[in-house]
């Protein structure tokens, strides 16, 4: 029987209220949205906050907005809401694709985008696609709002640049002129309820027949989700064809630093990164070719 130790549950109606609780209780407090990561950590003794600051009631943090310039998602948006959103399926379907791989239906009814980001697991499923889309994080603290590119947000396994008195308020993704093509491939044993052993997201735009703004983001192969920038540069310079796909699969191995754990050895992760990168590149090229015909 997994029970929780006693704590105080504090409902917040506004972000200001949540911030003032954070300032008051500091390291003794944790923000709870869906709780699908936090409550597990508390049940397994990895976290023991005395105060849980519940932000589910803050409607300002739960939204999906899209106009011609950008997509904005609030941190309390549930993963299933992202999965089912017509706006996201139309303009950034890779986010819906990644959402579908996360946990299970029951978990997705509860888990939030902000939770996946702030929990900062190296293999978080929403993270490689967000990195490919050059997402920006908006952070609110006592002195106001600051923005950070998501690729600077993660500092280590389960570590972020958020201070104890700050809260994520928005994720913003600029809409490119040409619709991006992107894919997220998650390598895991089960069809659901599994973490990514390796996660690969590939994205590019097609500009006058040229593959541009190529992004490759990887999960599960480094202390944080990461961009494979050397590999991106290679493909940006030399294009995407079977020769460069082979080259890319070799270059990418120099950029990653996986560890061995219960889900696989470092060598296995290196091997699967190569496989999934090639697969991701072939799929995206085929997708864009199909849509041209």
């Amino acid at each position, binding site marked *: 029987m997994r029970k929780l130790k006693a*704590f105080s549950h504090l409902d917040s109606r506004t972000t200001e209220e949540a911030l003032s609780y954070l300032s008051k209780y500091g390291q003794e407090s944790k923000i709870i949205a869906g709780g699908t990561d936090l409550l597990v950590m508390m049940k397994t003794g990895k976290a023991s906050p005395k105060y849980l600051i519940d932000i589910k009631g803050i409607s300002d943090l739960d939204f999906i907005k899209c106009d011609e310039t950008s997509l904005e998602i609030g941190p309390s948006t549930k993963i299933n809401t992202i999965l089912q959103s017509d706006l996201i399926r139309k303009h950034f379907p890779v986010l819906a694709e990644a959402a579908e791989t996360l946990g299970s239906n029951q978990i997705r*009814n509860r888990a939030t985008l902000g939770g996946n980001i702030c929990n900062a697991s190296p293999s978080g499923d929403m993270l490689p696609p967000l990195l490919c889309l050059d997402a920006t994080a908006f952070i609110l603290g006592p002195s106001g709002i600051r923005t950070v590119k998501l690729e600077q947000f993660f500092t280590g396994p389960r570590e972020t640049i958020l201070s104890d008195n700050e809260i994520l308020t928005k994720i913003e993704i600029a809409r490119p002129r040409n619709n991006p093509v992107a894919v997220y491939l998650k390598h895991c044993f089960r069809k659901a309820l599994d973490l990514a052993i390796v996660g690969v997201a590939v994205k590019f735009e097609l500009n006058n027949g040229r593959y541009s703004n190529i992004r490759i983001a990887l999960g599960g192969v480094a202390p944080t989700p990461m961009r494979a920038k050397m590999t991106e540069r290679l493909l940006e310079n030399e294009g995407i064809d079977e020769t460069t796909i082979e080259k890319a699969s070799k270059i990418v191995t120099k950029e990653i630093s996986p560890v061995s754990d219960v889900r696989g050895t470092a060598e296995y992760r290196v091997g699967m990164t190569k496989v999934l990168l090639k697969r991701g590149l072939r799929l995206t090229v085929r997708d864009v070719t199909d849509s041209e015909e």
Partner: protein
Amino acid sequence: MSKLVNLEINGKTVELAVEDHQLLLDLIRDKVGLTGTKEGCGTGECGACTVLIDGEPFTSCLVLAVEVNGKKITTIEGLASDGILDPLQDSFIKNGAVQCGFCTPGMILSAKALLNRIPKPTERDIRKAIAGNLCRCTGYGKIVKAIQNTSE
């Protein structure tokens, strides 16, 4: 310190005093006495504790009792009415989809939520909907068949 929550469980309104750290799963089993909902893993990874909250499936081991104030909860006990089984329950029995029965309450509720949303699901729809409910006995074949047979 106790808080009062008002909620509806299987159509009945109740007001209960709960502790901040109490789980919905324990509220249902220990306080209300409905033991059809099971604890399998306690970490949201098996689905045995699945209940419907406002019609949607959640793993109740990861929901706090204080979070369901004002909500409608459906447990497995809420499906039959006046002693007559829900067609889904009937189908599970007729199709041999129950072996040890431990996963069954959660499984049926996930299936019920699916059929409410998609009355005629494909096999793929069904397998996706129950992917969060692990069964160690049946191999899922008869479970899928039972759900398909209900929708016809």
